């Protein structure tokens, strides 16, 4: 299994604002670019794995997209895990290839919450409308506050993550937000729902992204120019809503990473560069802990002093992450991981030979991990 499947091609749209485009159109552009990058014709695609647009559920979205792409895949459809779904779909596609269920798989996602509806992100959680318990950022703020109380994590430590992602995003010509900030800018940023400020929250973005998977053997036969092997993957989930979760600061990232590291046969110390899902700064901080880059509760100290910036011990979100490149849920992080392994990133980590990528969804309900190599 280890390294038997590769990411053979990547593609995406511009990130930001696409007022006149459907999510189908954004998906098709991303898939077209990924197929061109791979050097494969769409007629050879026999697996299509789709994360449906988060902001608007639609029945049989995957079949409609296949029709519009003019392909008749043997296997595929839509998977719902919120933001963890993209890496989960990559792992399911890899399993399908290993099991002979398909040979060339496309995993894709597109959404347009910036120009379309954002309603889904503003709904009440559970039965708690009467208390004013609405929105996604407050769920993460609830977890952040507990982490601060339990471990002494500070606002400035959350800010260090925002500063690093914005610094990297400013050097990425594709990033939606190319403006560096200082820690002081972060401190002045508008409080949205304490303890989270605007600069703790990811962007809202329209856009699409796609990757093409095939066996390493097939990639060699087809002379794919820059295949990147998948070394490991894993998933983890908690079904408890925030209010019911027995431990607010323990996440499914831990079991997800444990599974992925075991499959890859490597450990956190072997990772050269990380793309960590940063829908909110606290998400990235807790993922770093649960992935084993430091002990639980020490994530705040770990991210200080530029350790997660280019040149630091664990350069993270080298294309800007959700905080700066695009708020799309996660596939862009995989694409940046592929670029780092190809040695072709806008902000390249010298001699990077392994990359870990995280995706997560809901309010830390779902988690998926991908480890890429060379």
């Amino acid at each position, binding site marked *: 299994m280890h390294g038997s499947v590769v990411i053979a091609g990547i593609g995406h749209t511009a990130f930001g604002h696409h007022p006149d485009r459907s999510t189908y159109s954004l998906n098709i552009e991303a898939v077209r670019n990924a197929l061109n990058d791979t050097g494969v014709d769409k007629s050879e695609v026999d697996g299509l794995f789709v994360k449906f647009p988060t902001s608007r559920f639609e029945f049989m979205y995957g079949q409609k997209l296949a029709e519009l792409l003019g392909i008749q895949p043997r296997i595929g459809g839509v998977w719902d895990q919120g933001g963890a779904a993209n890496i989960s779909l990559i792992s399911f596609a890899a399993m399908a290839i290993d099991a002979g269920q398909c040979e060339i798989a496309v995993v894709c996602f597109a959404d347009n919450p910036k120009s379309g509806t954002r309603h889904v992100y*503003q709904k*009440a*959680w*559970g*039965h*708690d*409308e*009467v*208390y*004013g*318990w*609405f*929105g996604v*950022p*407050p769920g993460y*703020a*609830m*977890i952040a*506050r*507990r982490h601060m*109380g*339990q471990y002494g994590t500070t606002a400035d430590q959350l800010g260090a993550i925002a500063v690093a992602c914005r610094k990297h995003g400013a050097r990425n010509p594709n990033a939606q937000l190319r403006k560096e900030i200082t820690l002081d800018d972060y401190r002045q940023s*508008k*409080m*949205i*729902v*304490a*303890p*989270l400020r605007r600069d703790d929250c990811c962007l809202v973005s329209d856009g699409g992204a796609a990757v093409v998977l095939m066996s390493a053997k097939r990639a060699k036969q087809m002379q794919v120019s820059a295949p990147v092997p998948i070394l490991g993957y894993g998933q983890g989930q908690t079904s408890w809503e*925030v*209010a*019911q979760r027995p431990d*607010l600061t323990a996440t499914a990232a831990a079991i997800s990473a444990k599974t992925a590291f075991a499959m890859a046969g490597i450990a956190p110390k072997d990772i050269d560069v990380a793309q960590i899902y940063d829908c909110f700064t606290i998400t990235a901080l807790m993922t770093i802990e649960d992935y084993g880059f430091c002990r639980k509760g020490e994530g705040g100290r770990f991210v200080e002093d530029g350790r997660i910036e280019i040149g630091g011990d664990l350069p993270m979100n080298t294309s800007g992450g959700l905080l700066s490149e695009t708020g799309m849920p996660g596939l862009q992080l995989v694409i940046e991981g592929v670029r780092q392994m190809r040695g072709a990133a806008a902000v390249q980590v010298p001699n990077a030979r392994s990359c870990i990528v995280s995706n997560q969804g809901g309010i830390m309900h779902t988690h998926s991990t991908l480890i890429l190599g060379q």
Partner: protein
Amino acid sequence: MTGEILVPDRSGVNEHYWLALDARHLVFQECLSCDKPRLPPRTECPHCLSDAWEWRRASGAAKLISWVVYQTAFHPAFADRLPYTVAVVELIEGPRLISNIVEVDDPETLMIDQDLELVIQHERGTAITRFRPFVRGSSNTHNGVVN
């Protein structure tokens, strides 16, 4: 208040919870098979899947698991309440629930795991569960319930 008026879902398994609150009692479910307490109301126990339960009265004593302070309204009905505090509260009997913390001048001075006490408040005909910091000796509660 602007926007729609929000009313809780009082149907099915939720009905007794709200009727009890109207009578100024916070109640929770206790599984008759495995004895585990639970909220929010559910028809089956998520621990043992039994559909047999009884309602129990909560004492009103609780602790603060975490809290947030809304500086932005995510729903128009709450725009004129800003800033307001939403918390995860754990009843001494075990169940956790979403609630509001009231009677606090500066919510940044709250602390995780601090003791709370129940305050039942009425809004537009609905009794709503809220909590305030517990201060030993200064409580004017009766069975943890204050109007």
